[in-house]
C-alpha cells in the first residue's frame, strides 16, 4: 500500500505528463494542418505531370526505344528500397508500420535470392532497420535540419537515385511511406517508382480520351519529352511521398498524443480515488483509536 505522500507525488507527476502530451497533441494538430495544406498545394503539379506522362507512355511503352526508366532494365535482380520515415518518435506506430512493410519486402526479396539495397530518409527508420540491414544501407538522408519540406530535397534524393540507376546499381526502386488517409488512418504504402508504373486511374483516363498522345503536338518529339519528364516525375513522386509522410506523421502523433492524454486522465482519476480512499481509511483508523482510547478510560 503506497503512502499518502507517494500517491500525491504520483498524481502530480501524471498531471505533468498529461500537460506535455496535451501540448504535443496541439502542436501536432497545428503542424498537421500546415502539412495537409502543403500536400494539397502540391497536387495540381503532380496531377498534370501524371496526365501528360500517361498520354505519352501509352504510345512509347510498346516501342523498342522506350526509355529505361519506363521499360526497366530487363532484369529484376537488384532492388533499391527507399524508406521514408520521420526524424522524431512519439508518433504511435508511424515509423514501425513503414519499417514493417519495408522489412517484409526486403526479407521476401532476399528469400527469392535477389539483391537488396536500402536508402533511408529520416533517422527513425535507420535506427529501426540498423540491426538487420546495416550492411544493405547505401545512403542516408538526414532530415533533422529540414524545417519545411521543399522540392529541392525531393530533387536531391531523386537525382541520387537516378545517378545510381544510370550507373546500373539497381533495376527496381520502390518507395516506402505512409499514405495519409485521415487523422486516424495512415496506410503504409510501397510504391514502385522505377520502372515507372502507371496508376490504374491514369490509364483509365487515357483510354477514355483515346490516347492523349494523338491529341497533342509535341515539341521536341514525344520521346525527347518523355526522356525529360520521367526523371522529373520521379522527383515529383518522391516529393508527394514526403509530403504525405509529413502529414501522416503529424496525424499519427496527434492520435497517439490524444490517447496518451486520455490515458493520463484516467490514471489521475484512478489515483485520486485511491488517494481519497486511503485518506478516509487513515481518518477512520485515527477516529477508532481515539474512541477506543476514550472508552477504555
Amino acid at each position, binding site marked *: 500500500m503506497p503512502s499518502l505522500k507517494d500517491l500525491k507525488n504520483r498524481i502530480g507527476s501524471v498531471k505533468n505528463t498529461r500537460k506535455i502530451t496535451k501540448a504535443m497533441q496541439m502542436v501536432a494538430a497545428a503542424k498537421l494542418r500546415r502539412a495537409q495544406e502543403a500536400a494539397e498545394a502540391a497536387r495540381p*503539379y503532380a496531377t498534370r505531370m501524371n496526365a*501528360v506522362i500517361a498520354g505519352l507512355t501509352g504510345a512509347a511503352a510498346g516501342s523498342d526505344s522506350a526509355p529505361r526508366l519506363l521499360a526497366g532494365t530487363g532484369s529484376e535482380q537488384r532492388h533499391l528500397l527507399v524508406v521514408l520515415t520521420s526524424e522524431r518518435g512519439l508518433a504511435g506506430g508511424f515509423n514501425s508500420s513503414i519499417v514493417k512493410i519495408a522489412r517484409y519486402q526486403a526479407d521476401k526479396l532476399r528469400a527469392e535470392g535477389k539483391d537488396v539495397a536500402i536508402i533511408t530518409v529520416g533517422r527513425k527508420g535507420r535506427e529501426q532497420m540498423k540491426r538487420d540491414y546495416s550492411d544493405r544501407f547505401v545512403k542516408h538522408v538526414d532530415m533533422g535540419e529540414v524545417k519545411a519540406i521543399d*522540392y529541392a530535397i*525531393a530533387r536531391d534524393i531523386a537525382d541520387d537515385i537516378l545517378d545510381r540507376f544510370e550507373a546500373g546499381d539497381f533495376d527496381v526502386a520502390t518507395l516506402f511511406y505512409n499514405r495519409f488517409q485521415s487523422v486516424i488512418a495512415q496506410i503504409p504504402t510501397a510504391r514502385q517508382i522505377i520502372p515507372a508504373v502507371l496508376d490504374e486511374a491514369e490509364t483509365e483516363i487515357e483510354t477514355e480520351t483515346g490516347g492523349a498522345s494523338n491529341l497533342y503536338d*509535341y*515539341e521536341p518529339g514525344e520521346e525527347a519529352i518523355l526522356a525529360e519528364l520521367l526523371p522529373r516525375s520521379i522527383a515529383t513522386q518522391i*516529393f508527394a511521398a514526403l509530403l504525405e509522410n509529413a502529414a501522416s506523421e503529424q496525424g499519427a502523433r496527434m492520435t497517439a498524443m490524444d490517447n496518451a492524454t486520455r490515458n493520463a486522465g484516467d490514471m489521475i482519476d484512478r489515483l485520486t480515488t485511491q488517494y481519497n480512499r486511503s485518506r478516509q481509511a487513515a481518518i477512520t483508523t485515527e477516529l477508532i483509536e481515539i474512541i477506543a482510547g476514550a472508552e477504555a478510560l
Partner: protein
Amino acid sequence: MADTMQFDLVSPERSLVSVPVREVRLPGTEGDLTAMPGHAPSIVTLRPGLVTVVDASGTATEFAVTGGFAEIAGDSVSLLAERGHPRAEITQEVYNEMLADAHRRKRAVDEREDVGHDAITAAAKLLADMQALGTHIGLDPDQATVPD
C-alpha cells in the same frame, strides 16, 4: 471565339498564378513561341527564360522560369516549372541562388565519367541559358558564387 484563355503557372510546391490571359510568350527548348486562344494543342518543353503573359487589357507580366514544360490546349495554358518567379521578385540574390544550382548540376555531371555526352551538353546548355536569362533582365551572372 473567346478572346482569353486560362493561364496557370504551377510549381511542384504550389500553384503560383492562375489568370485569364490573351497571349502567352514561352521560351521553348527549340525556340520561342506565342500561344493565343485557339492554339493547336501542344506540349512544349521550356528552357530557362522569361515567360510573358499578356492579359485582356494588354498589360504584360513577366515571369522567370527555370525550365519545365507547358501544356497548351485551345483555351488554356498550363506551365509546369520547377521554379517560377515574377520578374520583380528576381533579385540578384534569388538569381545567384538559381545560378549556383545550375553550376552545381554542371559540376556534378562534369565530375562523372560514365554519363553520356548528352547529359554534359544539357547541363552546359542549362547553365548558358541561365546566364543569358540574367543578362537579359539586367542581373550579373558573374556575381553568383560557384560552389566548390
